[in-house]
Protein backbone atom coordinates (compact mmCIF):
# COMPACT_ATOMS: atom_id res chain seq x y z
CA UNK A 1 0.00 0.00 0.00
CA UNK A 2 1.64 3.19 -1.20
CA UNK A 3 1.55 6.22 1.04
CA UNK A 4 -0.84 8.74 -0.44
CA UNK A 5 -2.62 11.96 0.44
CA UNK A 6 -5.71 10.22 1.82
CA UNK A 7 -3.63 8.14 4.19
CA UNK A 8 -1.68 11.20 5.33
CA UNK A 9 -4.94 13.11 5.77
CA UNK A 10 -6.15 10.40 8.12
CA UNK A 11 -2.90 10.37 10.08
CA UNK A 12 -2.83 14.14 10.33
CA UNK A 13 -6.43 14.18 11.57
CA UNK A 14 -5.53 11.46 14.08
CA UNK A 15 -2.69 13.56 15.39
CA UNK A 16 -5.00 16.57 15.68
CA UNK A 17 -7.57 14.54 17.66
CA UNK A 18 -4.86 13.30 20.03
CA UNK A 19 -3.68 16.86 20.61
CA UNK A 20 -7.25 17.98 21.24
CA UNK A 21 -7.49 15.19 23.79
CA UNK A 22 -4.21 16.36 25.33
CA UNK A 23 -5.61 19.85 25.80
CA UNK A 24 -8.78 18.53 27.45
CA UNK A 25 -6.85 16.08 29.60
CA UNK A 26 -4.38 18.72 30.74
CA UNK A 27 -7.26 20.84 32.02
CA UNK A 28 -8.84 17.89 33.81
CA UNK A 29 -11.63 17.47 31.27
CA UNK A 30 -11.58 13.69 30.82
CA UNK A 31 -15.02 13.55 29.09
CA UNK A 32 -13.72 16.15 26.62
CA UNK A 33 -10.64 14.04 25.92
CA UNK A 34 -12.82 10.97 25.41
CA UNK A 35 -15.04 12.96 23.04
CA UNK A 36 -12.07 14.00 20.90
CA UNK A 37 -10.79 10.43 20.62
CA UNK A 38 -14.26 9.05 19.88
CA UNK A 39 -14.33 11.36 16.87
CA UNK A 40 -11.08 9.73 15.72
CA UNK A 41 -12.65 6.28 16.11
CA UNK A 42 -15.59 7.38 13.93
CA UNK A 43 -13.43 9.24 11.42
CA UNK A 44 -13.75 7.92 7.84
CA UNK A 45 -10.99 5.47 7.06
CA UNK A 46 -9.37 5.74 3.62
CA UNK A 47 -8.83 2.58 1.56
CA UNK A 48 -11.21 0.41 3.62
CA UNK A 49 -10.49 -2.53 1.31
CA UNK A 50 -6.76 -2.48 2.03
CA UNK A 51 -4.75 -3.20 5.14
CA UNK A 52 -2.86 -0.06 6.10
CA UNK A 53 -0.50 -0.85 8.95
CA UNK A 54 -0.19 2.74 10.14
CA UNK A 55 -3.95 3.15 10.39
CA UNK A 56 -4.34 -0.16 12.22
CA UNK A 57 -1.70 0.96 14.71
CA UNK A 58 -3.44 4.31 15.18
CA UNK A 59 -6.75 2.53 15.80
CA UNK A 60 -5.22 0.08 18.28
CA UNK A 61 -3.44 2.91 20.08
CA UNK A 62 -6.47 5.18 20.32
CA UNK A 63 -8.55 2.33 21.73
CA UNK A 64 -5.91 1.78 24.41
CA UNK A 65 -5.92 5.48 25.31
CA UNK A 66 -9.73 5.58 25.33
CA UNK A 67 -9.80 2.56 27.64
CA UNK A 68 -7.42 4.27 30.07
CA UNK A 69 -9.51 7.43 30.05
CA UNK A 70 -12.73 5.47 30.62
CA UNK A 71 -11.03 3.62 33.46
CA UNK A 72 -10.30 6.97 35.09
CA UNK A 73 -14.00 7.80 34.65
CA UNK A 74 -14.93 4.48 36.33
CA UNK A 75 -16.58 3.28 33.09
CA UNK A 76 -15.16 -0.23 33.25
CA UNK A 77 -17.59 -1.72 30.74
CA UNK A 78 -16.75 0.97 28.21
CA UNK A 79 -13.03 0.47 28.82
CA UNK A 80 -13.31 -3.29 28.26
CA UNK A 81 -15.26 -2.68 25.05
CA UNK A 82 -12.47 -0.41 23.80
CA UNK A 83 -9.90 -3.12 24.48
CA UNK A 84 -11.88 -5.71 22.55
CA UNK A 85 -12.31 -3.30 19.64
CA UNK A 86 -8.61 -2.42 19.70
CA UNK A 87 -7.42 -6.02 19.67
CA UNK A 88 -9.09 -6.48 16.27
CA UNK A 89 -6.51 -4.05 14.88
CA UNK A 90 -3.56 -5.76 16.61
CA UNK A 91 -3.86 -9.49 15.91
CA UNK A 92 -0.11 -10.17 16.05
CA UNK A 93 2.34 -10.11 18.94
CA UNK A 94 3.23 -6.45 18.58
CA UNK A 95 3.79 -3.59 21.00
CA UNK A 96 0.22 -2.41 20.36
CA UNK A 97 -1.32 -5.77 21.25
CA UNK A 98 0.83 -5.87 24.37
CA UNK A 99 -0.27 -2.34 25.27
CA UNK A 100 -3.95 -3.24 24.91
CA UNK A 101 -3.53 -6.34 27.07
CA UNK A 102 -1.59 -4.40 29.68
CA UNK A 103 -4.38 -1.81 29.90
CA UNK A 104 -6.90 -4.64 30.06
CA UNK A 105 -4.99 -6.03 33.02
CA UNK A 106 -5.37 -2.73 34.86
CA UNK A 107 -9.10 -2.67 34.06
CA UNK A 108 -9.53 -6.15 35.51
CA UNK A 109 -7.44 -5.12 38.53
CA UNK A 110 -9.81 -2.22 39.19
CA UNK A 111 -12.78 -4.54 38.68
CA UNK A 112 -11.29 -6.92 41.25
CA UNK A 113 -11.01 -4.12 43.85
CA UNK A 114 -14.56 -2.92 43.23
CA UNK A 115 -16.05 -6.42 43.38
CA UNK A 116 -14.08 -7.25 46.50
CA UNK A 117 -15.23 -4.05 48.17
CA UNK A 118 -18.81 -4.98 47.27
CA UNK A 119 -18.34 -8.37 48.93
CA UNK A 120 -18.75 -10.31 45.68
CA UNK A 121 -15.98 -12.75 46.41
CA UNK A 122 -16.40 -15.19 43.52
CA UNK A 123 -16.70 -12.46 40.92
CA UNK A 124 -13.75 -10.67 42.47
CA UNK A 125 -11.61 -13.79 42.22
CA UNK A 126 -12.48 -14.16 38.54
CA UNK A 127 -11.51 -10.54 37.88
CA UNK A 128 -8.27 -11.07 39.79
CA UNK A 129 -7.46 -14.13 37.66
CA UNK A 130 -8.19 -12.20 34.47
CA UNK A 131 -6.02 -9.29 35.65
CA UNK A 132 -3.06 -11.58 36.24
CA UNK A 133 -3.61 -13.51 33.01
CA UNK A 134 -3.85 -10.38 30.87
CA UNK A 135 -0.86 -8.77 32.54
CA UNK A 136 1.28 -11.88 32.03
CA UNK A 137 0.20 -12.05 28.38
CA UNK A 138 1.20 -8.41 27.94
CA UNK A 139 4.59 -9.05 29.54
CA UNK A 140 5.15 -12.05 27.27
CA UNK A 141 4.37 -10.04 24.16
CA UNK A 142 6.55 -7.11 25.21
CA UNK A 143 9.37 -9.54 25.92
CA UNK A 144 9.00 -10.86 22.36
CA UNK A 145 9.09 -7.31 20.99
CA UNK A 146 12.36 -6.62 22.79
CA UNK A 147 13.90 -10.01 21.98
CA UNK A 148 13.10 -9.56 18.30
CA UNK A 149 14.81 -6.17 18.34
CA UNK A 150 17.88 -7.87 19.81
CA UNK A 151 17.83 -10.47 17.06
CA UNK A 152 17.13 -13.25 19.55
CA UNK A 153 13.89 -14.39 17.90
CA UNK A 154 12.11 -14.02 14.60
CA UNK A 155 8.67 -12.57 14.23
CA UNK A 156 6.77 -9.72 12.75
CA UNK A 157 5.77 -6.31 13.94
CA UNK A 158 7.20 -4.02 16.57
Amino acid at each position, binding site marked *: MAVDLEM*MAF*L*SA*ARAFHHEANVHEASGDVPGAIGALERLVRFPRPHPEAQVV*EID*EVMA*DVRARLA*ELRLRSRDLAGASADIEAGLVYAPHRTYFRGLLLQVDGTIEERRFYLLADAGLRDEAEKAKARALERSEEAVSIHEDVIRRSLGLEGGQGR
Partner: protein
Amino acid sequence: MKGDDPDRLPTAEELVAAERLRVAFEDPWTELEDVVLARALRLAWAPTGLERSVALRFGRRRMVAVAALAAVVGLALVTGFPGGGSVRQWRTSRSTEPLFEEKVVMRSDRIDRIAWARGADLRENRFTRWGVR
Protein backbone atom coordinates in the same frame (compact mmCIF):
# COMPACT_ATOMS: atom_id res chain seq x y z
CA MET B 1 25.48 31.84 -11.53
CA LYS B 2 28.28 30.86 -13.87
CA GLY B 3 31.77 29.91 -12.67
CA ASP B 4 33.29 30.11 -9.22
CA ASP B 5 35.35 33.29 -9.64
CA PRO B 6 33.92 35.86 -7.19
CA ASP B 7 35.68 38.72 -8.98
CA ARG B 8 34.31 38.10 -12.44
CA LEU B 9 31.98 40.70 -13.95
CA PRO B 10 28.27 39.86 -14.05
CA THR B 11 26.80 38.82 -17.34
CA ALA B 12 24.17 40.90 -19.12
CA GLU B 13 21.51 38.35 -18.19
CA GLU B 14 22.50 38.50 -14.53
CA LEU B 15 22.33 42.30 -14.56
CA VAL B 16 18.84 42.19 -16.05
CA ALA B 17 17.74 39.60 -13.49
CA ALA B 18 19.21 41.65 -10.63
CA GLU B 19 17.44 44.79 -11.80
CA ARG B 20 14.16 42.88 -12.14
CA LEU B 21 14.61 41.60 -8.58
CA ARG B 22 15.41 45.08 -7.25
CA VAL B 23 12.32 46.56 -8.87
CA ALA B 24 10.22 43.68 -7.60
CA PHE B 25 11.38 44.29 -4.04
CA GLU B 26 10.16 47.89 -4.36
CA ASP B 27 6.79 46.72 -5.66
CA PRO B 28 4.49 45.70 -2.77
CA TRP B 29 2.17 43.89 -5.20
CA THR B 30 4.79 41.88 -7.05
CA GLU B 31 3.99 38.28 -7.89
CA LEU B 32 7.68 37.34 -8.27
CA GLU B 33 8.04 34.09 -6.34
CA ASP B 34 11.49 34.82 -4.88
CA VAL B 35 10.33 38.15 -3.49
CA VAL B 36 7.12 36.71 -2.04
CA LEU B 37 9.14 33.96 -0.35
CA ALA B 38 11.73 36.42 0.98
CA ARG B 39 8.98 38.61 2.45
CA ALA B 40 7.29 35.59 3.98
CA LEU B 41 10.56 34.56 5.61
CA ARG B 42 11.13 38.07 6.92
CA LEU B 43 7.56 38.26 8.30
CA ALA B 44 7.94 34.86 9.92
CA TRP B 45 11.09 36.04 11.69
CA ALA B 46 10.08 39.62 12.47
CA PRO B 47 6.42 40.48 11.76
CA THR B 48 5.85 44.13 10.92
CA GLY B 49 2.76 46.26 10.57
CA LEU B 50 1.64 47.77 7.29
CA GLU B 51 0.80 51.38 6.65
CA ARG B 52 -2.97 51.77 6.49
CA SER B 53 -2.90 52.89 2.86
CA VAL B 54 -0.74 49.97 1.89
CA ALA B 55 -2.87 47.56 3.88
CA LEU B 56 -6.04 48.73 2.22
CA ARG B 57 -4.54 48.44 -1.24
CA PHE B 58 -2.92 45.16 -0.44
CA GLY B 59 -6.26 43.57 0.16
CA ARG B 60 -7.41 41.19 2.82
CA ARG B 61 -7.17 38.08 0.65
CA ARG B 62 -3.52 38.60 -0.22
CA MET B 63 -2.66 39.41 3.39
CA VAL B 64 -4.23 36.15 4.50
CA ALA B 65 -2.30 34.26 1.81
CA VAL B 66 1.02 35.83 2.81
CA ALA B 67 0.33 35.24 6.50
CA ALA B 68 -0.42 31.59 5.76
CA LEU B 69 2.75 31.26 3.69
CA ALA B 70 4.75 32.89 6.48
CA ALA B 71 3.30 30.45 8.98
CA VAL B 72 4.12 27.48 6.73
CA VAL B 73 7.66 28.70 6.13
CA GLY B 74 8.12 29.41 9.83
CA LEU B 75 6.93 25.90 10.66
CA ALA B 76 9.20 24.44 7.99
CA LEU B 77 12.16 26.25 9.51
CA VAL B 78 11.47 24.36 12.72
CA THR B 79 10.46 20.95 11.37
CA GLY B 80 12.53 20.90 8.18
CA PHE B 81 11.60 21.34 4.54
CA PRO B 82 10.20 18.32 2.67
CA GLY B 83 12.88 16.34 0.89
CA GLY B 84 15.91 18.18 2.18
CA GLY B 85 17.82 18.38 5.42
CA SER B 86 14.82 17.60 7.55
CA VAL B 87 15.33 18.42 11.22
CA ARG B 88 12.86 16.13 12.98
CA GLN B 89 11.83 16.92 16.51
CA TRP B 90 12.18 13.50 18.12
CA ARG B 91 10.99 12.98 21.67
CA THR B 92 14.00 11.52 23.46
CA SER B 93 14.58 9.48 26.57
CA ARG B 94 14.99 11.62 29.71
CA SER B 95 14.56 11.64 33.47
CA THR B 96 11.08 10.89 34.79
CA GLU B 97 11.61 13.03 37.88
CA PRO B 98 9.42 15.93 36.63
CA LEU B 99 6.47 13.53 36.53
CA PHE B 100 6.52 13.18 40.31
CA GLU B 101 6.37 16.68 41.69
CA GLU B 102 3.33 15.80 43.78
CA LYS B 103 2.66 12.98 46.21
CA VAL B 104 1.96 9.62 44.57
CA VAL B 105 -0.47 7.40 46.43
CA MET B 106 0.19 3.91 45.04
CA ARG B 107 3.48 2.49 43.84
CA SER B 108 1.96 1.50 40.50
CA ASP B 109 0.99 5.15 39.96
CA ARG B 110 4.65 5.87 39.31
CA ILE B 111 4.97 3.45 36.41
CA ASP B 112 1.48 4.44 35.22
CA ARG B 113 2.67 8.03 34.89
CA ILE B 114 5.92 7.06 33.21
CA ALA B 115 4.13 4.79 30.74
CA TRP B 116 1.46 7.41 30.04
CA ALA B 117 3.97 10.21 29.46
CA ARG B 118 6.38 8.22 27.34
CA GLY B 119 3.46 6.60 25.50
CA ALA B 120 2.46 10.09 24.40
CA ASP B 121 6.05 10.70 23.27
CA LEU B 122 6.06 7.43 21.33
CA ARG B 123 2.82 8.45 19.62
CA GLU B 124 4.39 11.77 18.61
CA ASN B 125 7.52 10.02 17.33
CA ARG B 126 5.47 7.65 15.21
CA PHE B 127 3.49 10.50 13.65
CA THR B 128 6.80 12.26 12.97
CA ARG B 129 8.28 9.10 11.42
CA TRP B 130 5.25 8.84 9.14
CA GLY B 131 5.91 12.40 8.02
CA VAL B 132 2.78 13.86 9.62
CA ARG B 133 3.59 17.47 10.48
